[in-house]
């Protein structure tokens, strides 16, 4: 059986209430219209007061030691409200990467800071749209007398301007990948980009011979493929949950609109074609939500490879769903659906941008097929 524990249920209800109030349409638009890096007040509440960043961090490092399910609950809800906070970057990308690949010192320092809500962290992935973005970095790290010199550009880093720390995977001279942690203003150049989806800011990162100390190298003897895959599975799971949530959010907005809008003397909610399309979204939400939470329950328990396949499947379902829910939101809003004033376009832009992250639909299905056919994929 698959259901929330009473504690999880409580986390969920409180987070939902909180986000409905704090990540309102107006709050989102303040960030989007200003091109801001994030909603600083909301982030302070989430990270410091509510302690959401501590959920999945092991107790040994100051966290609550809860599982993937709690994180997925929160990701779904932040997605539903398009909350403009570096929560996914910090918790689903960075913290998990540090946990999987970091040295004990790095874990103590950074996981502790994240758990305490003192730090927003992101990861400078080489190619954000690649299914395996850890391996594609073009940043090079050359050993120096007292540390390393980092050189390279990363075209797009999510939440970079909001982050207190950026983890940079870089290729060492021997070809191995190391992880470097750069706090604010330590030589990197950050250029916020003008993006279509303003709810999730992106910036480019430039490292022009940036000297870093050996203590800034945070991996425990190189980033292994297993660690990278484990971190990536968690990032994808969190993203799938967020996408699922955004789909639910788009549907909620749409249901409210069609219940009010009158045409031909009827609410448009009374038109069967519209009912059926909303119902089909419910079907797809049920499907995606089941796989997201099923995969979350399996993560850690099940065979890691099989778990990663479920996560890939969850990404496929959630990406399809999120886009369709957003496009239906625009369509069923009619004329106002493509105006700036109503919310569907926010969901829509987020949907396209999210679908492009961490592997296309096709790439995730290819991965599943390679396993189902047990042939390693088409060459």
């Amino acid at each position, binding site marked *: 059986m698959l259901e929330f524990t009473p504690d999880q249920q409580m986390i969920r209800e409180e987070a939902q209430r909180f986000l409905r109030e704090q990540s309102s349409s107006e709050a989102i638009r303040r960030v989007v219209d200003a091109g801001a890096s994030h909603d600083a007040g909301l982030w302070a509440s989430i990270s410091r007061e509510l302690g959401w960043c501590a959920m999945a961090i092991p107790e040994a490092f100051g966290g609550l030691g809860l599982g993937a399910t709690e994180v997925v609950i929160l990701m779904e809800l932040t997605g539903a409200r398009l909350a403009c906070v570096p929560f996914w970057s910090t918790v689903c990308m960075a913290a998990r990467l540090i946990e999987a690949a970091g040295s004990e010192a790095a874990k103590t320092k950074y996981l502790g800071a994240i758990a305490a809500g003192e730090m927003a962290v992101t990861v400078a992935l080489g190619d954000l749209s690649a299914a395996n973005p850890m391996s594609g970095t073009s940043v090079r790290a050359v050993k120096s007398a007292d540390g390393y010199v980092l050189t390279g550009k990363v075209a797009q880093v999510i939440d970079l301007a909001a982050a207190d720390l950026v983890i940079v995977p870089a290729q060492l001279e021997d070809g191995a990948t190391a992880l470097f942690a750069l706090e604010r203003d330590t030589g990197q150049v950050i250029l916020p980009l003008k993006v279509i989806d303003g709810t999730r800011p992106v910036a480019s990162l430039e490292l022009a011979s940036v000297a870093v100390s050996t203590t800034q190298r945070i991996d425990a003897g190189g980033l292994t493929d297993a660690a990278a895959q484990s971190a990536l599975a968690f990032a994808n799971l969190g993203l799938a949950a967020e996408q699922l949530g955004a789909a639910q959010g788009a549907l909620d907005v749409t249901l409210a609109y069609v219940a009010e809008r009158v045409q031909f003397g009827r609410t448009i909610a009374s038109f069967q074609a519209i*009912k059926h399309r*909303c*119902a089909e979204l419910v079907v797809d939400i049920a499907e*995606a939500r089941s796989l997201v939470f099923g995969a979350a329950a399996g993560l850690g328990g099940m065979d890691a490879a099989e778990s990663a*396949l479920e996560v890939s499947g969850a990404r*496929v379902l959630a990406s399809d769903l999120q886009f369709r829910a957003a496009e239906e939101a625009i369509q069923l809003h009619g004329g106002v659906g493509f105006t700036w004033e109503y919310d569907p376009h926010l969901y829509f832009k987020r949907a396209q941008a999210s679908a492009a992250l961490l592997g296309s639909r096709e790439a995730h299905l290819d991965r*599943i*097929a390679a396993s189902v*056919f047990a042939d390693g994929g088409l060459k």
Partner: protein
Amino acid sequence: MSGVEAFRTEVRDWMAIHLTGKFAELKFRGGSGEGDALPELRKEWERELAAGGWTCPGWAKEHGGRGLSVAEQIAFQEEYSRAGGPGRMGHIGEGLMGPTLIAFGTEEQKKRFLPGILSGTEFWCQGYSEPSAGSDFGNIKTRAKLDPVTGDWIVSGQKVWTSLAHLSDWIFVVARCEEGSIGRNGLIFLLMPLSQPDVEIHPIKQIGGGAEFNSVFFDGARAKAEDVVGQPGDGWKIAMALLGFERGISTLGQQMSFQQELDLIVEIARENGSDRSPAIRQRVAYAWTGLRAMRYLAMRVLSDDQSAEARREALTYKYQWSNWHRDLGRLAMDVLKMDANVVADDPRRERLQQMFLFARADTIYGGTNEIQLNIIAEQGLGMPKEPRGKL
């Protein structure tokens, strides 16, 4: 090994020993689209199951069952399907009629009918749908008139989509017992033997050539006074409760059989080179994904979560599996390419061909896609109801 795992092993062992010999022929048979296959042997198999104590294992012990937990029932269904256990002739009795009698029947009715179900010797079919009341269940026109002399009910009318009526002993019938009543009111729930002169059964030939469904004609047929379940007028309530028993645990067994079908498709694709097609690979991967999601959805539906969200999403299950299965049928044929069209003596291909054809019924019986979407929109989302017309 957990209790459920030990139980799982017990089922697996029992099936390995018993689904052999003459019963080996039944492996993977009698499923959707060929529910009428090998009926006599499958009835014998029901008695074999009964002898092993595997009929009605989810019923409480006081009623002759094993009182299995939900987790054990799931394990049973899964292992039964995994072993290739044939389509259950006793399904209606075990899954619908028995639970309904346990809930609403008199002591005397339980005593008369439960043993035949438990022993795999009496088979039931259902009399719900009518030609003009397919999705519109409230439009039932079959009449039941009280015979004032005997207290029996005299039934006239027609039921359709009665699965396996021609191989069954009893039918339960929802009929209109109050003259002039409409909709949900004035219905009665009757138990009727099929072998009586004024009942005629006409098989309906299906898309795949089989005929597991029937039209059943009643022309003054008789239900005994003591064979009314509940009170006259309670028919709707009892029928709805009965349908409620249908949802549930057997879906996990069904999923096991879906997984087998998907495995077959993968196997054939590897043999005939369809696995080199990027589009086929993507579709197979997508089917795999949908099946995983369905598995978790079923587990959520079977959980105790009573939130509005959980109840809404539970409404999607029928739509989900039936459409998934329907699409799997097409995928299977596309993988088979030209061979899909040729009926040959290849049980794997035949299984997939029958599945392809009969899966077309999946999205229709038990509430069409359109009805399911209405239900999800209206009950799940609270959207306005479709108005009833006046034709």
